[in-house]
């Protein structure tokens, strides 16, 4: 019986101008967002791979020079753009994509697209994920706010119930019709996008991306399903269609526009991040402190680079000094990044009242554009930097330190540069993302079940009031 109700509702909705106009607008925006994202990604990937190749080529062909000079110059590594960043750019525009691997210091990722953006970017980037997270719930509300209330106001509900249509069939029929409207709008675009994304990938990466797409579909399905059942519940509980619309729009504004910003501020209060100045000062202090201890232990010197340490130990001192700082770098960056992750986890709980917050984290995670995957890249880049430092220091110990006071006359050549491997970074797999975001998915499932229960309760009450 629910299929009969669903088919009728779908027919009524497709003849209704709301679906045509609002849905058409959403589809156009979706296509624009996908095209813009696709174009951006193609351009970025080509620029990054060209940049990576040029930079490594420059490293290999830097001629003969003192290895420490080479290490000071360092090289750049570029974060590969995950293919699903077209769908959800996540924190990408705000955290940058390039790391300068230079001696002595762990650099932050640079070149954030948001830095070059106009003030309009503050309103949020037009991405397919944003459309599904923010505009599609609005579309569901616009086409579904009067699903039950209008039937009651017009009197058709009386007719339906007099025929013995069970409330459960009515609920699932109407839910199926609303879901079909959404499906008709996004499924063709989504499927075409998924096929295009997967087709352009190397065979080895396809399975992972297919799994990511499937999980994303599950997450978004639960989220949009939540709005479908919530809309039906409010429509059944409200005294009039107007009340239903006001309540649902109020929830939409609060849950999708206000809550994410409030959650961000609230979690920052709960798990405060240090200011840039405080972080840099603390880091510098800890690195210097660790350096002092290491110089004292290894060379009996009171301060790093004490003139009492002979040049024949300069290479060894460089290695000791660098390695002494690693602990402080790991601790400070680790603490900062742990704070970011704690903020993210705290925000997930806001998903219990505003599911968009849970979905946003889940979506970024599965698209490979969240903080945990950014952290993974930053860690890999730092490991590459340390690898370069180590190669350079070992070479200095082996060749330059033997020259005693003539240490700085030593020049290494292409053979040494070639021992530094090209930076190759593989994006973490889907299981990495799921391990970080299963709680968000569970929250979405809970919210979905609660909305179904609320809708069942709303339709189990006497509908003829």
């Amino acid at each position, binding site marked *: 019986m629910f299929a*009969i109700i669903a088919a009728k509702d779908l027919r009524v909705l497709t003849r209704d101008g709301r679906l045509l106009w609002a849905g058409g607008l959403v589809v156009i925006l979706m296509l624009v967002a996908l095209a813009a994202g696709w174009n951006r990604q193609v351009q970025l990937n080509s620029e990054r791979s060209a940049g990576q190749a040029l930079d490594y080529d420059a490293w290999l062909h830097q001629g003969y020079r003192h290895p420490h000079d080479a290490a000071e110059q360092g090289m750049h590594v570029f974060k590969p753009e995950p293919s699903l960043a077209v769908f959800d750019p996540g924190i990408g525009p705000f955290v940058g994509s390039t790391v300068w691997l230079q001696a002595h210091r762990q650099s932050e990722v640079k070149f954030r697209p948001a830095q070059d953006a106009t003030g309009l970017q503050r309103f949020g980037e037009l991405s397919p994920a944003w459309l599904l997270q923010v505009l599609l719930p609005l579309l569901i509300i616009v086409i579904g706010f009067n699903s039950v209330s209008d039937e009651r106001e017009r009197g058709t509900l009386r007719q339906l119930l007099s025929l013995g249509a069970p409330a459960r069939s009515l609920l699932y029929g109407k839910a199926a019709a609303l879901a079909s409207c959404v499906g008709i709008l996004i499924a063709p675009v989504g499927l075409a996008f998924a096929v295009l994304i997967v087709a352009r990938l190397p065979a080895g990466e396809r399975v992972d991306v297919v799994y990511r797409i499937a999980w994303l579909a599950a997450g978004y399905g639960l989220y949009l399903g939540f709005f479908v059942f919530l809309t039906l519940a409010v429509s059944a509980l409200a005294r009039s269609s107007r009340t239903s619309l006001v309540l649902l729009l109020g929830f939409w504004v609060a849950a999708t526009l206000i809550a994410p910003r409030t959650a961000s501020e609230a979690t920052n209060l709960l798990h405060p991040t240090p200011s840039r100045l405080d972080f840099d000062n603390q880091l510098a202090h800890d690195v210097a402190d660790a350096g002092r201890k290491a110089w004292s232990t290894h060379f009996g010197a009171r301060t790093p680079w004490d003139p009492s340490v002979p040049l024949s130990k300069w290479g060894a001192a460089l290695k000791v000094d660098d390695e002494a700082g690693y602990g402080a770098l790991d601790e400070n960056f680790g603490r900062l990044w742990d704070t970011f992750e704690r903020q993210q986890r705290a925000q997930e709980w806001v998903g219990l009242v505003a599911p968009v917050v849970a979905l946003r984290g889940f979506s970024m995670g599965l698209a490979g554009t969240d903080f945990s995957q950014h952290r993974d890249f930053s860690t890999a880049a730092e490991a590459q930097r340390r690898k370069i430092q180590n190669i350079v220091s070992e070479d200095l110990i082996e060749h330059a330190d033997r020259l005693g006071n003539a240490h700085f006359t030593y020049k290494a050549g292409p053979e040494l540069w070639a021992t530094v491997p090209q930076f190759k970074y593989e994006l973490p797999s889907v299981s990495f993302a799921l391990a970080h975001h299963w709680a968000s998915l569970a929250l979405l499932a809970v919210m979905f079940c609660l909305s179904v229960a609320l809708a069942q309760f709303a339709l189990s009450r006497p509908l003829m009031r």
Partner: protein
Amino acid sequence: MLDAIEVTKQFGAKSALDNISLSVLPGEIYCLLGANGAGKTTLVNLFLNFLQPTSGSLQIGKLDVVRHPLETKRLLAYIPEQVTLYGVLSGLENLAFFSSLAIGEHLPRQRLLELLEAAGLPRQAADDRVATYSKGMRQKVGIAIALAKNAKALLLDEPTSGLDPSAANEFSELLVRTSNDGVTVLTTTHDLFHAKQTGTRIGIMKQGRLVEELRSEEVSHADLEALYLKHMKS
């Protein structure tokens, strides 16, 4: 077939029905007369289980309405004063939808057209959107739904209200034909002429009570009018 047994319905302190009992036999047309607020529509709503009685019970085909809401509704067809349909769908589509719900299967187009024709809707109007229909035409779609359901009992809430005399007469004839096929009819109305013309029995309600019950062949139209006015004025 339709039985109300000592039914009382109260809304807060106000009593809408006061210990009312009536019984409509198979093939009978029972017309309930009464002023606005007499409790006629409340009784219909109780039979539909849209409301539940404060005390007493209602039965359709010996099944309790409250305990067997879906089963009793399967035996019923209901035509309200304003037959409400989906304006963006055609008469045929509305009938297809409601009849599918009622009988659980899709009737072929030809059968649907026959039902609409039997209810008196012109064939050329079947594919027009219901938004363009007159009240009488909607009423006919409502009847077609009832016919499609092949219901054992019909509940009609002021079905001829607002119909022009010719449409009302057509409707009355259809009702008589339906009852001749053994269908039980309970109809509320303000129309004494309609009640006398079509009813097998007539009940007069006042302030939630059944104050008079008579067979229509026992009274003339003038007597019925006098009796009705007497009760209304008392």
